[in-house]
């Protein structure tokens, strides 16, 4: 067997191992959204309290659009107080926080809202139209929509206070 053949046989193992090692660096569950930097898809929601909200009406205001579900434990339960706190802090500066409850039962969702005393508008997403339009693949996911209606940032998984604050400040 020629030496180059021997060597190339042995060396061909290296790229395979490198590729597998690269796998440790990536998270298969994290999929970057193609929507970031683009115009946010329009939505029109009927809230649990009967009011209506649509992206059209909110044009010119920074929007924090949060997708959640009552069965999403613990991530949604952990981020809920931070969302309410951010709403309290920034509502006077024109920031809107909207919660979209997906794949849920209304009664469970209302219990969740009561539990965390949400005062920002929350509404269900019948037939999942809005969540599919936003490319949601799990809960919680949060979109930060700037004044011009483009998506500034998308967060996957539970939000903490720091990220929430930083991203809202960036949009102001």
């Amino acid at each position, binding site marked *: 067997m020629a030496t180059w053949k021997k060597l190339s046989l042995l060396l061909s193992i290296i790229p395979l191992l490198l590729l597998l090692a690269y*796998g440790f660096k990536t998270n298969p569950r994290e999929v970057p959204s193609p929507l970031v930097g683009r115009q946010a898809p329009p939505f029109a929601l009927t809230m649990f309290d009967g009011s209506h909200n649509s992206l059209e009406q909110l044009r010119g205001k920074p929007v924090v659009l949060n997708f959640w579900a009552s069965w999403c434990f613990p991530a949604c339960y952990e981020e809920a107080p931070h969302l309410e706190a951010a709403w309290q802090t920034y509502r006077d500066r024109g920031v809107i926080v909207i919660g979209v409850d997906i794949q849920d039962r209304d009664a469970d969702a209302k219990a969740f809202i009561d539990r965390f005393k949400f005062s920002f508008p929350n509404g269900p997403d019948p037939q999942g139209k809005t969540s599919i339009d936003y490319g949601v693949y799990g809960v919680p996911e949060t979109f930060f929509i700037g004044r011009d209606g483009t998506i500034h940032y998308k967060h996957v998984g539970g939000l903490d206070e720091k990220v929430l604050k930083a991203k809202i400040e960036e949009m102001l």
Partner: protein
Amino acid sequence: MIATLGRFSIWFALAIAVYGVCVSILGIRRHRPALIESAQGAIVSIFGLSSFAVLLMEAGLVGHDFSLEYVARNASLDTPVFYTIIALWGALEGSILLWIWLLGLMSVLAVMIESKRQRELMPYVTVVLLCISAFFLFLAAFPASPFTTISPVPPDGRGPNPLLQNHPLMAVHPPGLYAGYVGWAIPYAFGMAALISGRLGETWIRTVRRWSLVAWGFLTIGIIVGGRWSYEVLGWGGYWAWDPVENASLLPWLTGTAFLHTIMIQERRKMLKFWNVALVIITFALTIFGTFLTRSGILSSVHAFSDSGVGPLFLGFIGVVLFLSFSLLVYRSDKLQAEGDLDSLVSRESAFLVNNLLLLGFAFSVLLGTLFPLLSEAVRGVKVSVGEPFFNTVNVPIGLSLIFLMAIGPLIAWQHASIESLRRTFAGPLCLSIMGTGICWFFGVRGLYPLLAFGLSLFTVITVCQEFVNGARTRRRKTGEGYLTALSKLTSRGRRRYGGLIVHLGVAFLVIGITASSVFKLEQEVTLKPGESLQLGRYQVRFDDLSAWQEPHRFVVQGNFTIFNSNHKVAEMRPAKRFYPTEQQPIGTVDVRSTMREDLYLVLSSFAKDGTSATVKALVRPLMMWIWVGGWIMILGSLIAIWPDRRRALAADSVEEYVAWQPGRS
């Protein structure tokens, strides 16, 4: 108590493994048989200690010793005993323990059975097996210890993952697969022993062929039963999702199948020596790769255990195995020259070579598809998915060519097949299968692939039957035996050949089942009120009502359906949803009515809480049962091939060889 004893036995086993490696190397160097025997004693003690550890773990599980973290996470007071026992392989640490025990068992058997016959190779085999054991014992001793304790001790455990306590097949699928994985360690160890010792004749090949068949048989059981489990538990109506971990179990099966075929060339023609060692290395590395994929979480999969830090260790182990083995292989490559030569492009040898090409091509496309998301992300930075549409498009043509080869290969003459002999052997079956395909077409089968799949499977069935009939007829003429006696004696005289042919028959059934059940699948999802029904194929499915009750460890909601076939009531079916307190999403339980003709598959998708409606997904999958029947025929065939001969193996070989040498006799 259990924790201390358990940890002690694992540590002790690890120490013994390291000791065994050292003494056997010393024994080989200094030519001291006593040291070699001591190393073989080490293998026996490791098996003893790991059996003890498994028993301790079972005692912990069944005795609800929640001070053990593993028990607290994978057992609970409400879990039925059966599922508590099999929780041993419900999570990472326990499955590594099972792995160690199986490897210990196989190693002990290998030492007991082969050490007399293989005096020269055995010391090296012992070293290799002990090294593998040491790696897994290291995992169980440090990063994935099954005997870690927690405090405070919880009053109750979380119980096994509901998907794993929903079906009795969980008792068979993982151990079968593991035994298949672990089994390949034995042929690998013999291959390495041959390389290290430089005894690269046909001895090691002859020794490992039965071990390889055992490993292959277990892997087949694991895969088939896994498919069945997926079909009956996951509730999507399919059995194979091209999930990374499923693919990982298919890879060593494919390369192992290739190995089982090419060792025949080496035995008879003293060729492909290099290739056979390479194949056994690749197969073993792929079994470790399969475990690696399950444990590392680098690809998303139904089977992925949570990320646990053993991933990099596995990767390191794969790297070491590949580098050491291939270095040895190229170092010995001069001794691995073919001694024989080929005579013709049309011969059994060529058929085997093409069979290897296609099997390896199949394996390569599966591996590439499985790792392509990683590759795409590394090269383009874009995440892509590679799933069923990709694998079906790429692999179906490769698979069909393989079936074609499977039908003709065993009947082509060794060395050189003349046109005349080919005509004599294949003219009949070819005509019959073309007619059969025509009949399929007449009955509404359309499309190139389905027709080819049916035609080629039929071709295989006919050639296999022809082979049995001709063999039995020849025997009958020579010996005057009855037909059945002739058939059974024929099979038992050439177990390997006829076992192999039976495996081919099983594959043909499997392919017919796969094709019919996917091409002619009927599917409907409808919301029904009580009394309403849906019509699917021949069946009318009537929704009667919902019932619900509380079981110790779960809450069950069940839909009651009555099935009519042209106004005759044929069955009552009860798909359900089970709500486990630890899970947010309910686990569906499907109900399947299987006949040889078709399966009716019902899933309760959702229901109104007040019982006024239920959404049901109904599927009709024709010839679905043939898949499982084919699987069992494959396992039966491998059992026949594995079964030890009463007569001396050598004599059987030669007869088998002569039988195989005569294509187209009548």
